[in-house]
């Protein structure tokens, strides 16, 4: 009985295409005897004369039925999908094409000059790069610890109902439009920050001598913008970190408690170390979110193209300068320079988003939970 069990059973049956090919070898090798009883006469040929069975079922049906309605539907939806692909191509092409005059005129390195002077043909974007980076850094420095600690509280410490309520409250933050947060920023946050800055400025400890607190207490500036960005990043960091911590297998927790750890020790030494990669990914996602933030930042940053280390200083970001100066750029070259700033924003956001997703994907793979291979 040389029933060729291998050919029919090793390759996963076609209808189970949802299982990723790499983990497809999950079927146990069958006993020759069992095959004989179950399948009776061996199949003369494979049920459908198609290429590798890893393809989704649907494809096969299309080719064999060829109904016009199916074709039309497939074409229509395919056209929609094409529009998405076209959109990203158009976006990248337009930005690259628009930036070329600026790069050609000043050379790639000139964009790193700190002098932005459109009337004199000087398009150095260093102050904007710095402003974007610095405000995002401040935002992440506030949001990341806050988000992680909150996630820990929600998953490990607080009762479920309260935890869900708090989650909702933070997620609703993500729904608030940037311009409205900016409105709140101008009238509530900036005076608050100014009060804090004045206190530091007048402090008998001489804190104002430190470079990080140098400069007059304006209220507007890097610190206010950073706080607003932290508020915007928090919901993303919280929801991803929550998921990451929830995914920690209970075996870890049980092992910790079995060893006599306190709750905090379980968290600190057993759960968090498991989640660092995911937390890092959450941080990257949050960062990607805040880098391109325009409205709220424009309303509280002071719009000064300079590079200062102080939290109190006013600055300028890539997105803000585009918003403020695009409609009135004095020359085509200036427009091109602004478009090149947009290109920088695009590339950085692609990089960060890509890195974040790879990070999170690796995390889920290393945990052994089979994620859909994208």
């Amino acid at each position, binding site marked *: 009985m040389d029933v060729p069990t291998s050919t029919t059973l090793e390759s996963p049956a076609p209808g189970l295409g949802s299982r990723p090919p790499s983990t497809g070898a999950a079927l146990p090798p069958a006993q020759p005897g069992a095959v004989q009883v179950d399948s009776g006469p061996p199949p003369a040929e494979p049920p459908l004369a198609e290429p590798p069975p890893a393809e989704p079922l649907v494809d096969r049906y299309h080719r064999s039925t060829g109904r016009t309605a199916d074709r039309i539907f497939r074409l229509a939806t395919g056209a929609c999908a094409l529009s998405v692909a076209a959109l990203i191509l158009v976006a990248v092409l337009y930005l690259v094409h628009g930036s070329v005059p600026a790069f050609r005129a000043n050379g790639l390195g000139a964009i790193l000059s700190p*002098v932005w*002077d459109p009337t004199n043909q000087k398009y150095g974007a260093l102050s904007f790069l710095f402003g974007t980076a610095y405000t995002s850094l401040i935002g992440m420095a506030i949001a990341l610890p806050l988000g992680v600690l909150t996630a820990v509280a929600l998953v490990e410490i607080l009762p479920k109902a309260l935890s869900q309520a708090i989650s909702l409250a933070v997620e609703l933050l993500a729904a608030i439009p940037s311009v409205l947060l900016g409105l709140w920023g101008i009238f509530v946050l900036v*005076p608050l920050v100014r009060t804090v800055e004045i206190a530091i400025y007048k402090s008998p400890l001489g804190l104002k001598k430190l470079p990080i607190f140098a400069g*007059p207490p304006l209220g*507007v500036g890097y610190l206010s913008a950073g706080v607003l960005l932290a508020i915007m990043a928090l919901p993303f960091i919280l929801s991803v970190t929550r998921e990451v911590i929830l995914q920690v297998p209970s075996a870890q927790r049980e092992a910790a408690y079995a060893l006599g750890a306190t709750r905090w020790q379980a968290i600190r030494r057993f759960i968090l170390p498991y989640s660092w990669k995911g937390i890092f990914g959450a941080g990257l996602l949050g960062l990607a979110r805040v880098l391109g933030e325009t409205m709220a930042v424009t309303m509280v940053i002071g719009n*000064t193209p300079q590079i200062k280390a102080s939290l109190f200083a006013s600055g300028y970001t890539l997105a803000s300068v585009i918003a403020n*100066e695009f*409609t*009135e750029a004095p020359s085509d070259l200036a427009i091109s320079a602004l478009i090149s700033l947009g290109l920088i924003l695009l590339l950085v956001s692609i990089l960060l988003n890509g890195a974040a997703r790879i990070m999170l994907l690796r995390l889920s793979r290393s945990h052994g939970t089979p994620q859909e291979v994208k």
Partner: protein
Amino acid sequence: MTPRSLIRAGFAALLLAPVAFAQTTSLSGAGGTFIYPLASKWFHEYNLLHPNIQINYQSIGSGGGIRQFSQERTVDFGETDGPMNDQQLNDSKIKPIHHLPLALGGVVPIYNLPVNGLKFSGETLANIYLGKVAMWDDPAIAKDNPGVKLPGDPITVVHRADGSGTTYTWVDYLSKVDGEFKTKVGVGTSVTWPVGLGGKGNEGVAGMVRQTPGSIGYVELIYALQNKIAYAPVKNAAGEYVNASLDSVSKAAATASIPADYRVSITNAPGKGVYPVSTFTWILVSPALPDESKRKALHDFLVWAVTRGQDYSKDLGYAPLPKSLVKLELKDIEKVR
């Protein structure tokens, strides 16, 4: 009505909607925030008189007005208080462009301090905006204000973040009175500021000064008046400290010789009682505008603006155009039709 007929009616309405709007002549313009309070009053009143003419003016800064009208060609007219230079006129994608004065105004220094009644000379203002005078109790400010107890706080300088005709007037004046300012900063709608925060539009600067104790800024007079922000008199060429007013601004225009194309700077004008930081503000129009109904609407509006419209100027803190100038202008407005 059955649902089906309702749907049909809805479709018909949707299709007809653009037609219904087509009876209205809609004009769009972009330009400075300097004129915005007066211009929006004008367009509002004119629309009440002629409901089928809607003029949509967005104040994105004089720089924006020049760019969108002469280069991008996205609006039907521009507006600026910093006149276009020859290079810009040459490079314009629509020609010819006429500058037609609409009003006279003054740019005033505003400040936010517990002390009131401060005065400034041109040199002091230039040095503040150069960053050389950084504290309120600096001797230069004390010299302008003898006997006044000045706080020992740092000065927060506020300027425009966008391309602005108000900026043009301000730096034009400061460059005339201070050589270092002229070389370091120069004249234009957009300059490289040595120090200071950027506000968007006259409104943005006024808003920032209002919110920030210890700050100084420059805005068109009406923005200081409407928002009850303290503003200071400036020392003129004759050595007097003069406040911006209808009278002092008009005097600045009186001595100027107006060229045929109306582009003239009247800052630091000589004479007594003159406010030194005064300026005309111009509308930018072109007879090359393709749509004839739009040209006609613009023409009719402009005739109204330089005659009847001038009655609104005083209440809003702008000085009306001199009558002799209006006579000349009415002839040039005919070119627009």
